[in-house]
């Protein structure tokens, strides 16, 4: 039994109302399923329950059980099945209830989906999406950022939005992309009131692989993504007010492929680079960005490349411990002061 009308909570944009980042993702999924009958969803508790964070609330009633499939607890199984369905011309979007749970599917994502096109087995347009990130007292198994577990795998794309507008446009682009995409959604941004915005009523996509200049400045560049975009903007506002320096903030939006051109352009303008990520330090994306800038813009640098990241530990559970683990606005301010004074 399916319903023809759009659920009320998925029509805010059509009514000119602001939406949260979570609602933007829901709208993107809904509209892509309306637009293209080959798009369908799989995951644990996404149907009857509407998903752990209610991203797919109301989808089962509207699209039916054949397009909103509640799976057994089997991240590897349903991700592998998504690959098979994609081979047959469907466009599956699979939800990891928490992205921490993607680890059982590591084999099928890295060895199968990512290599399929290169091996001559054809493209596999699969989106693997789910909530990531700390700050919610979720402890070590419900708070991780998983991007770097996959960043080293050619054949994958990795998306990590920071605004509702981008989340919707990037999700649509990911679903329409013919390569497998890992789509990370920060839990702290899902319902953040300050991120509510009115989105365009018409269809739009945000192209993968293109960074966004979130703030213009000439004294130093912060390259960041996800929740740290907002921490960086907050730090930049403090630095402007207290120190009179202008920090440029570049929101990567897509981590793989990286927008090398945008990073190099900004660094050549400011001569100083700070990379900020919520992910842990060692093997984080800051290392790769620093290397690329060293290769492409070394002569424009006026100071060492620095990074602000989570500490190298599992995500701790206790509030105080987690607060210490995560990067803070004050960390970014302190580091920028060092950088601009170098």
């Amino acid at each position, binding site marked *: 039994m399916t319903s023809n009308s759009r659920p009320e909570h998925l029509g805010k944009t059509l009514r000119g109302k602001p939406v949260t980042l979570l609602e933007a993702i829901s709208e993107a999924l809904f509209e892509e399923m309306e637009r293209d009958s080959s798009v369908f969803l799989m995951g644990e508790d996404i149907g009857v329950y509407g998903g752990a964070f209610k991203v797919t609330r109301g989808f089962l009633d509207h699209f039916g059980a054949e397009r909103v499939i509640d*799976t057994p607890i089997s991240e590897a*199984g349903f991700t592998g*099945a998504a690959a098979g*369905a994609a081979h047959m011309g*469907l466009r599956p979007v699979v939800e990891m209830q928490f992205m921490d749970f993607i680890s*059982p599917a590591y084999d099928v994502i890295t060895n199968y989906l990512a*290599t399929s096109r290169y091996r001559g*087995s054809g493209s596999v347009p699969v989106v693997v999406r789910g909530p990531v990130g700390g700050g919610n007292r979720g402890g070590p198994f419900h708070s991780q950022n998983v991007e770097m577990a996959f960043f080293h795998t050619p054949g994958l794309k990795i998306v990590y939005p920071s605004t509702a507008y981008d989340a919707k446009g990037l999700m649509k682009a990911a679903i329409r992309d013919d390569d497998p995409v890992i789509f990370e959604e920060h839990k702290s941004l899902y319902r953040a009131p300050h991120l509510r915005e009115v989105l365009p009523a018409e269809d739009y996509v945000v192209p993968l692989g293109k960074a966004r200049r979130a703030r213009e400045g000439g004294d130093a560049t912060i390259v960041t993504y996800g929740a740290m975009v907002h921490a960086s903007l907050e730090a930049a506002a403090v630095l402007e007010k207290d120190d009179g320096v202008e920090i440029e903030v570049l929101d990567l939006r897509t981590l793989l*492929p990286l927008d090398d051109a945008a990073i190099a352009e900004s660094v050549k303008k400011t001569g100083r680079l700070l990379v900020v990520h919520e992910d842990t330090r060692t093997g984080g994306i800051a290392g790769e960005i620093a290397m690329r800038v060293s290769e492409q813009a070394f002569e424009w640098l006026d100071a060492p490349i620095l990074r602000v990241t989570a500490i190298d530990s599992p995500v701790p559970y206790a509030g105080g411990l987690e607060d210490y683990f995560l990067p803070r606005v004050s960390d970014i301010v302190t580091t920028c002061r060092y950088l601009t004074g170098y």
Partner: protein
Amino acid sequence: MAGRDDPVDLYRALALHRAAATRLKSLREQGQVPAATRCGLGYEAVSAGAARALRTADDSTGDVIAPTPDNPGAFFVFGGTPLEFFRQRLARDSAPGRGREPGMCPTDFERGLAGPAALPGTMVEVMAGITLAFRLRGQDRVGLVFSGEDETSTSAWHEGINFAAAQRCPLIVVVQAGTEASIGAHTRARDFGQKAAGYGVASASVDGGDVLAVHGAVLAAAERARSGKGTTLVEARGCPASRRVHRAARTGEGRHPDENSPDPVARCRARVVGERIARASDLDEVERGARSEVRAACEQALGESSPAEERALGGVYGGDPGTPPWYRLEPPARGLAPASTT
């Protein structure tokens, strides 16, 4: 083919499998292919008998199979040619996989061929998704995946068959089992039918060296799947024991010490001749034809070139032409940043 088969045609399929596997073994002994290459000797009956129970087509309307490297006979039944087989194994530029992966079976969904995965069990997940797509689209198609008995111990195999069972996928999982002794190396279950019961799927156990028995069991499973009754596990006993068991027994390739089943090709021959379905001389002619075809294909593939080195580039993503590292293109000028470092 999807009906009671002509025993002479079945014998032809066995003979082609045997000839190709024998030739591949020679190449392995000569060091022309890696020492770990699996040839498929002893799997003739299960390969050909199962594949010939399904519907083949060359326009994406037939059934889909996922052979292991032990199943060249199934590959040939689904339209694969000995020339493709040797090109693939010898990593020729002309191979469907363009030398990028060594799998015996390249992916070609028009012909119903699903290529390999890295780890055992993954293709059960992928085939669950392929057959899920058949069911969602109301197509009268079936998928079949071959597994080794050792594969059944993996989480991927479990999640794949459980997913297929839960979603009533029209999937046939053929477990190429050895003897009681070799099965006991992998499970405390008496046979794989016990495992099938745990998943709530139908099962059949047949002599894997008897091509007609395999053919009949898979034919029944396919009819069952086409009528909406879901997944079936077919246990084909008497196949060569898994390599893991071989290693334990230190017997090298061949049969496990307690495996005394007659050669499946000889068994089929004895039956066809004994029941006066064909004369021995007719079968001799079939064998000569198979050997001749295989010899010609192998010689042609041996005479072809390997891919040019730079063909390692490109095709990782859609529209990816492949960009060589800058230091392969031009010597770097001192003090100047290279134009591209990716």
